[in-house]
């Protein structure tokens, strides 16, 4: 098999438009990791994620000719992936989510913290905790409603800029910032609770 290196996304797209199987293979090799990771973050289930990834690549191959190149290829693919995942979520019974309001910080009337704030930032630096915390965070993000989760996953987990996240989701940048902030506040609060309980258990 010729393994001519397809140098950049435009060449790749051009190949897809001409029905090149080689371009499709390069596309898969280049993006499947990121797309799978994103699908997993949103869907939280291996077999669902696998099907979503299939759909994403088929959509990209079939619609390559409609891609205008206004955004980067990966950003277009992320968008397709998010849409695919959200459609899958809608088809299912919603996994249980919590009222995010219950976990927002509380302030006094004049805007002061109502209680002392624990600083656990140093505690979590211990290597032993790393894996455990990963699982805990994973579990907590699953309880976020998709409105917050998708923004959080793109920005904080995948590490995209707020502008990119906004573009992918068709939101304004302020909307992205606000959802992201609330998602972080929620997770911070849940982690605080988790670490406090853990400490009590040990004593």
């Amino acid at each position, binding site marked *: 098999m010729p393994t001519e290196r397809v140098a950049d996304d435009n060449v790749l797209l051009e190949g897809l438009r001409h*029905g090149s*199987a080689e371009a*499709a*293979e390069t596309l*898969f090799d280049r993006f*499947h*990791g990121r797309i*799978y*990771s994103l699908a*997993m*973050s949103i869907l939280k289930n*291996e077999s669902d994620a*696998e099907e979503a*990834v*299939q759909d994403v*690549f*088929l959509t990209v*191959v*079939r619609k390559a000719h409609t891609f205008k190149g206004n955004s980067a290829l990966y950003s277009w693919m992320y968008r397709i992936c998010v849409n695919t995942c959200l459609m899958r979520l809608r088809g299912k019974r919603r996994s249980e989510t919590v009222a995010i309001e219950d976990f927002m*910080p509380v*302030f006094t009337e*004049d*805007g*002061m*913290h109502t*209680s*002392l*704030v*624990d*600083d*656990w*930032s140093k505690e*979590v630096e211990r290597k032993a905790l*790393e894996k455990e*915390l*990963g699982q805990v*965070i*994973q579990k907590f*993000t699953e309880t976020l409603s998709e409105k917050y989760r998708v923004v*959080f996953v793109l920005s*904080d*987990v*995948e*590490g995209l800029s*707020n502008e990119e996240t906004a573009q992918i989701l068709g939101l304004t940048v302020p909307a992205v*910032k606000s959802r*992201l*902030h609330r998602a*972080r*506040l929620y*997770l*911070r609060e849940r*982690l*605080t609770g988790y670490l406090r309980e853990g400490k009590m258990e040990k004593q």
Partner: protein
Amino acid sequence: MNCKELVYLLGDYLEGTMEEPLRQEFSLHLEMCEPCMNFLRTYDTTRILCRQIRCEEIPEEVRTRLKAFVMEKVREHNRDIEKYVEKAAIERREQVSTLLRAYAANRLSPMMAVLFQTHNDRCETCGAFLRSIDGGKSLVEMPKVPPDIEEHIAEFLEALPPGEAPTLS
């Protein structure tokens, strides 16, 4: 700035997108307020910890299965397209040949006759080819249309207004 306002602005602060006067106010509050300092540290740590839940590895078995599936579908898709392209080419050839037959037999509709004549007067390649088949003889067999002429005439046909019947019934 109070604690509530500070918490609201944490994202901007950590991103470094805060305007200078506001930033100074923010830092001033932070220096004097332990709860806010702790809040900021834990908020920032949360953000950093979350990077780690990124599903970094796709299981090899899933990867192999996915790739095989996607590539098979791509080949199917490409075969469909090839079939479609082939079908379209055959249809086009038929249309061109119908047009030429009607032209040779003087059976073009009046409108088409005018349009086609105009095109052929202007277009040297088509004109030359048509003169070679024109001559009153009723063509039993159409000479093979060279690909460039075929493409040209197909383009001409595609540019016609809709609903125009090219030949006399």
